[in-house]
């Protein structure tokens, strides 16, 4: 028996497959968001997806609902404008760590302060993938990228601390922990006020291959080995995933 993948109704199926590289994790996040929306019976009318620029910025265009693909770093103020103008809309932002924390970092600082009721799904692949693999605001210290050939020396942004500073919803998961990631996204979508889900996502083409990974699968499995679920504490260690409300 062929099982109908009902969550696909949230996507424009004729645009599939996506243009993302083989082994990329963005598609996994797209699927998780759709499944979470389905779980909560999100209406297609009344929901808007907003994204910024980068590989992850292409996410919005796949959704079978009204969506906005903004300028680089500006997904948050656009999303806030939408929500503040029409409070009835569900507003979901899907964008990358470079977009949300680098060029758009100032907006996150203030959006959390305003606690605008929007849901942010951050595809955190720790690399500027679309431009060839430069280090990003979440690249780990020591990580070798195109622009850090001897290893990154800058600290990655402590997103958890940033989001929690203004008592917003924060969750972290990975593209390996599918069930856990869905729980995080569902929790975020149900949350009143600003929610931020950081999904650690693999980029094999412009990151992993420079760091000795043979393929996307190997990177995915590294999340299994490197992250453990913590659903008790009020703060996540850097190798833990969980929800902090």
């Amino acid at each position, binding site marked *: 028996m062929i099982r109908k993948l009902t969550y696909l109704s949230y996507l424009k199926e004729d*645009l599939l497959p996506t243009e993302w590289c083989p082994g990329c994790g963005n598609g996994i996040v797209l699927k998780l968001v759709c499944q979470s929306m389905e779980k909560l019976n999100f209406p297609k009318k009344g929901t808007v997806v907003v994204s910024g620029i980068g590989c992850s910025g292409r996410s919005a265009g796949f959704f079978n609902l*009204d969506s906005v693909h*903004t300028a680089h770093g500006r997904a948050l*103020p656009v999303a806030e404008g939408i929500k503040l*103008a*029409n409070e009835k809309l569900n507003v979901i932002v899907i964008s990358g760590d470079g977009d949300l924390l680098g060029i758009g970092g100032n907006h996150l600082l203030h959006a959390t302060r305003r606690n605008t009721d929007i849901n942010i799904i951050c595809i955190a692949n720790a690399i500027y993938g679309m431009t060839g693999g430069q280090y990003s605001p979440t690249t780990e210290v020591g990580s070798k990228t195109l622009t850090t050939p001897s290893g990154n020396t800058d600290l990655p942004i402590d997103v958890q601390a940033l989001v929690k500073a203004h008592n917003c919803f924060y969750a972290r998961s990975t593209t390996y922990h599918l069930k856990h990631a869905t729980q995080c996204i569902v929790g975020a979508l149900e949350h009143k006020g600003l929610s931020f889900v950081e999904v650690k996502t693999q980029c094999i083409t412009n990151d992993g291959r420079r760091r000795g990974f043979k393929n996307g699968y190997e990177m995915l499995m590294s999340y299994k080995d490197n992250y453990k679920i913590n659903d008790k504490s009020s703060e996540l260690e850097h190798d833990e995933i969980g929800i902090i409300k």
Partner: protein
Amino acid sequence: MTKTLLQGNQAIALAAIKAGMKFFAGYPITPASEILHELTNKKEVKVFQMEDEIASVNAIIGASLAGVKSMTATSGPGFSLMQESIGCAHMMEVPLVIVNVQRVGPSTGMPTLPAQGDILQCKYGSHGDYFPIVFYPNSVDELYKYTFTAFNAAEESLSPVILLSDGYVGHLYETIEAVDSPISERSRSPLGTSNRHFTGLTHKDSRPAASNTDVHKKLIKHFETKQKKISKKYNNYEYIENKSSDTLLISYGAMSRASYYFKEDYAIYRPIRIFPIVEDIKEIAKKYKKIVVMEMNAGQYANEVERLIHREVELISIQGGRIDLHDIGSRLKRINRKK
């Protein structure tokens, strides 16, 4: 009809509410802040003071797409910050009104003496080809009137319309009648009602087409045609003929107020819709031997006029925020003595 004493900036704020604006986002900046102040606590409009001008213009992009008429107001430094997103709004065809109360630049310049240094930035400030509609009134009464026009043109063209002012006109107090104009309704259904995709990428039928040359050419042509067509409805300019003079004095905004002092001796032309440039100037210019453009920059509009009428024009450039009638008078005489 009752008369009210209003400041230029105040007039914009009050007219915007009457024109149906429901959302305003802005960041404090002299000499534009009074617009933000005037709107705060007005029950008809949601007002947000954002973290910067980039956030402000993007918030109104979101709000406009979400279904309400939206506006922001700033001065040169903020206007520079907004440029990328103004291009984005042209690409996504988002109706907006962006007020720029100009001050002396570049950079922080002379806070906050009046200037007209952002004329070309209105037209060319963002990357790529786009064809903005720009209005530049010169009195409190006109600021009130053209705020309606700006909102109407934005809705009709589905594009961001720039309403220019300057530190002089913005801070000017005048007694006006505040006559409301008819207003255009929203021209597009709000977000959350369909499955459209608004993108800054080259696109066709709500889908990205980022590597299709033909689609891109058609899209840019569509922008150009649309802006030309809509702006024809607003061929606004002021022309004071002077049969005893062989010189046409062209100026706009604050400078045009100074030009009135010379109307005995010179013909006066004042573009109000400064972009797309009103082509009537081609015919009007033919009647005069000399064309003088007087503006508070190094000749930004003079170049545009020259390009349009294919004739050399004389420039009276006023810089540093001070308008000195005696100085203008002697410079005009000097130009007139030239053969």
